[in-house]
């Protein structure tokens, strides 16, 4: 199998999404031609997507194109960015801007490779002040600075 060919793998992903969506949408009711149900459109689109996916799998399988290999996943960056957003989401309303923003900045900076402490902390301080100024002072967003401190 050609698990390294971007065309082939992308095709596989599209087949899964398309077929999955079409099967789920069948449950929403296709309706009659003069009164299409909630499932009609997603079923059609899902089937088309699955067909396009199959075509890509065939194409990727046939053409051993060295130039279109799957690009390397940077798991560290993925994890850092998602973790920074989740941390921010959890703490923003409960622990306040003064915790959420610097915390997210430090976690996000891990995506760049090794941690550089001084620039990271300086950036965290700057962005916290910036976020406070733009969103709370400027746009009047209701967010606590610290738990219970507004």
């Amino acid at each position, binding site marked *: 199998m050609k698990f390294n060919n*971007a*065309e082939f*793998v*992308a*095709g596989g*992903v*599209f087949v899964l*999404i398309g077929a999955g*969506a079409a099967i789920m*949408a069948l449950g*929403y*009711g296709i309706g009659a*031609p*003069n*009164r299409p*149900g*909630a*499932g009609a*459109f*997603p079923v059609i*689109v*899902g089937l088309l*997507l699955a067909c*396009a*996916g199959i*075509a*890509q799998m065939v*194409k990727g399988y046939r053409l051993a194109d060295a130039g279109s290999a*799957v*690009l*390397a*996943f*940077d798991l*560290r*960056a*993925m994890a850092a*960015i*998602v973790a920074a*957003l*989740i941390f921010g*989401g959890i703490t*923003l*309303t409960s622990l306040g801007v003064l915790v959420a923003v610097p915390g*997210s*900045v430090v976690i*996000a*900076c891990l*995506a*760049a*490779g090794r941690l*550089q402490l001084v*620039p990271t902390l300086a*950036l965290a301080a700057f962005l916290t002040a*910036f*976020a406070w100024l*733009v969103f709370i002072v400027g*746009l009047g*967003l*209701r*967010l606590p600075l610290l738990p219970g401190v507004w």
Partner: protein
Amino acid sequence: MDLFANLANGFSIALTLQNVFLCFIGALLGTAIGVLPGLGPLATIAMLLPLTYALEPVSALIMLAGIYYGAQYGGSTTAILVNLPGESGSVVTCIDGHQMARKGRAGSALAIAAVGSFFAGTVGTLLIAALSPYLAKVALSFGPAEYFSLMVLGLIAAVILASGGVLKAVSMILVGLLLGSVGIDVSSGVHRFTFGSFELVDGLDFAALAMGLFAFCDIMANARGSHARQLATGKIASLWPSRDEFRKAWPAVLRGTGLGSVLGLLPGGGATLSSFASYMIEKKIARDPSEFGKGAPAGVAAPEAANNAGAQSSFIPMLTLGIPSNGVMAMMIGAMMIHNIVPGPQIMTRNPDLFWGLVASMWIGNAMLVIINLPLIGLWVRFLQIPYFYLFPAILIFSMVGLFSIENSVTAIYMGAAFGLLGYVLNRLRCEPAPLLLGFILGPMMEEYLRRALLLSRGDPSVFVTRPLSAVLLAGALVLLVTVIFPSVRKKREEVFAEN
């Protein structure tokens, strides 16, 4: 004349103190973020979208248009100074623009780009004002079947005229159409693809999707190893082009403007296609083609004028038909929908102030950019030198709090993170995210028109081919699809997009 009365009305709206100020802020922010290497107009608009939520619709659109032009101008600055295209529209500007910069003519290249773009923008604005009313009249006679077919044609053309693999782009559109159908179905009340989650009932959040796909996904792809500083740029001596450069540039500006205005009207046209095509033409008709690639002023002037004219005239199908021809226009439609404005032919009659105010502000925005860009060039050069290591956390924080601010809810942040992951996986599989956005925007409209057309025809699907206009549009889509499969056409297309 009607045109001038309308434009005068538009200027009276766009020239209020508040709107001029917002236009200025938009253009300034757009330029500031657009010059940052690797941040194109899509990411810039996505990031700044929440700032416009609290404004009135007219003001919000004026600011967004300012951001868009600013991002585009900023992109060409980066292209010329560091040879890094911020977006696909300025890829060709890199070729000759950067060579000019290396010869010490950076200032002149920037001035040519700015003034050429301003000229093209002026022509493009007039074109919108002159053409839109007619197109809107035609569009008012469209029934649901015609609209559905028009959207099919628009999506197919967008795929074929854009660069990249056709099959992949079609698949991305289809994924977008599916994502667009998430949430409660308006006509039956069925919850689709909500997986029992209350948050998904209202559908996926447009801003979260846009930020995930264009901001978070970019960060994941580029964060690694971003400590390293970028190459600094040389000094900018003079902004004045020499007499010889001027003589070579102005006919190219005219040609680029003409070509860009026409190509921008096509679905899938807009900035990218226009700039590539105009560069090809300049190279073909030049007396000394060997100059190209080594700093030909015409090689900067033509694509810059063309991409601005194209960017401008792609507003025409968006405003009159409600059809986005590229990712940026999809973004504008998304922004309009947030303000409960449905783009389409009725916009001109129902919201004339909004329409003409926006058109007038486009010209003001373009003029402002020349004023912002040239004297402040020293500041933008500083911006350019900020390492990505300092930028991406800033983008992340700004987007994160921005997502929260939309509905005072953190759900949008999680949604954005999920779309960032989706976008990153697709990015690693070499799929471009812009077609997905097009599908997402058009999906609900397409479904509605499909449904209405079938309802009117009492369930007879042949309505799409028996109504003449609809049949022509579908035939056009089919012809496009078939031609792209033929090798000779495909080769030509690859030639146009092949980087020199």
